[in-house]
């Protein structure tokens, strides 16, 4: 029997993950923890309600961003640093996630580094400036959307032609997924919020990318879909809106897309 005080201490020591499942890097951490059977507590920080700006959360992460973790007295943010930390600090995480081999590890670092100003900047910028901005009450920025699209399509080409080269179906020719696969695929999943035509226009040219997304999703089920549920629900709401808008347009003969297209 553990007494109350010990229980409290133990709860304090359990890994805490501060996340919003609408945030791509948050999803990567949650899926990683679940897939690897890591004992943790998920603490929801609702970005749409600006909870990341609360003084309590600022004490956890002065940069006011999710995801962030607290492990005992140790705080950390930046999803790649978190993934590396968890892979290194928790026993039982399979080697393929973050290999001990120095050369393979270095290649994974290279993808993780490349990601920030390429896929992430492109995908997040494009989705924000076409779909999410209106939902957040922000003005649409067509210029920013066009720029982001350029970066996004260029990044997808780079993944298709360079990063997915090799014998395996994962990044860097790997036969099993690494933290880089999880991070990048969660980022691309945000494109699910685009309307069907846009989504297909952007992703269709990249066959290897599509296969890779499916492989990663498969390798991390059922957690992948479970963690992405919030995103899927929003996607459904948006597509219902779009079809009722389309019906309205047909009936009235007036064109007026809810989601700005370039």
């Amino acid at each position, binding site marked *: 029997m553990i007494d109350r005080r010990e229980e409290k201490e133990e709860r304090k020591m359990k890994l805490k993950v501060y996340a919003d499942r609408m945030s791509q890097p948050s999803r990567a951490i949650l899926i990683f923890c679940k897939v690897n059977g890591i004992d943790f507590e998920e603490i929801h920080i609702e970005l749409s309600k600006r909870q990341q700006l609360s003084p309590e959360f600022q004490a956890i992460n002065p940069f006011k961003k999710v995801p962030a973790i607290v492990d005992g007295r*140790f705080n950390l943010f930046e999803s790649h640093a978190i993934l590396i930390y968890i892979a290194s600090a928790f026993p039982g995480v399979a080697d393929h996630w973050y290999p001990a081999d120095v050369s393979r590890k270095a290649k994974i670092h290279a993808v993780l580094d490349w990601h920030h100003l390429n896929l992430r900047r492109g995908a997040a910028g494009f989705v924000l400036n076409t779909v999410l901005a209106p939902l957040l009450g922000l003005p649409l920025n067509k210029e920013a959307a066009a720029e982001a699209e350029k970066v996004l399509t260029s990044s997808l080409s780079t993944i298709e032609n360079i990063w997915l080269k090799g014998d395996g179906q994962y990044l860097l020719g790997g036969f099993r997924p690494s933290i880089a696969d999880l991070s990048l695929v969660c980022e691309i999943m945000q494109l699910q919020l685009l309307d069907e035509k846009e989504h297909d226009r952007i992703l269709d040219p990249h066959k290897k990318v599509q296969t890779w997304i499916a492989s990663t999703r498969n390798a991390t089920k059922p957690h992948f879909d479970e963690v992405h549920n919030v995103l899927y629900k929003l996607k459904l709401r948006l597509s219902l809106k779009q079809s009722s808008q389309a019906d309205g347009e047909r009936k009235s003969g007036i064109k007026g897309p809810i989601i700005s297209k370039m």
Partner: protein
Amino acid sequence: MIGKLKVYADRMSQPCRAVLIFCRLNGIDFEEIKVDISKRHHLSPEFTEVNPLQKVPAILHGNLNLFESHAILVYLSSAFPGIADHWYPTDVFKRAKVNSVLDWHHSNLRYGEVNYVSNTVLGPALGRPLNPKAAAEAEKVLLSSLSKLENIWLNGDGRFLLGNFQPSIADLSLVCELTQLEVLDEKDRSRILSPYKKVVGWIEDTRTATNPHFEEVHNILYRAKKKFQQQRSRIAESGTETSNNMGRHSKM
């Protein structure tokens, strides 16, 4: 035995300088191969073999070719013997913190600095029109990043990032990014940097901790700085824009 390390670099590139200084400081035996961005050497088929993304820095070490400066610095810290622990600590907590600065850097300090400098000095030097809107946006990101450095990253007892007493690869990477501001007009550079006293002190400390290699590797940048200054005074004197062929820019 693995072949000698080859480092493909253009010293006008901030991340290249970080890798070169790190190698020299740690007595790593390597060959520096110049890739002149201004002459578009990075687009050559030979270099594309080394790095299909056509960017510097890149390294070749035996069978490994690697690019992205942070990945390179992490690799070198781990692959070469005798490198002091403070550069990339083996302690999992300290290492995680260093990783978090390295991650933060890309979309913050680097993004702000590169876009500000290229939209005010380096871009125009290549005949690109001035883009005051882009420069203004970049400046916001740059100033916000400097503020985060001043008020968060440089908190603690030591004089380096994360309150450390000795520099890590994060200090080297970020300081080499900030030295690129040397090409700005002196007034502009001072306006941007001087409010951040800790940052200014930290740049000095990192320089001191890595000299004489720091100064030596930055030589090209200082020469470029002089050229830009002379050009600016010529323009000021003549009162007109002269067409120029500075031909030097950093593209990462």
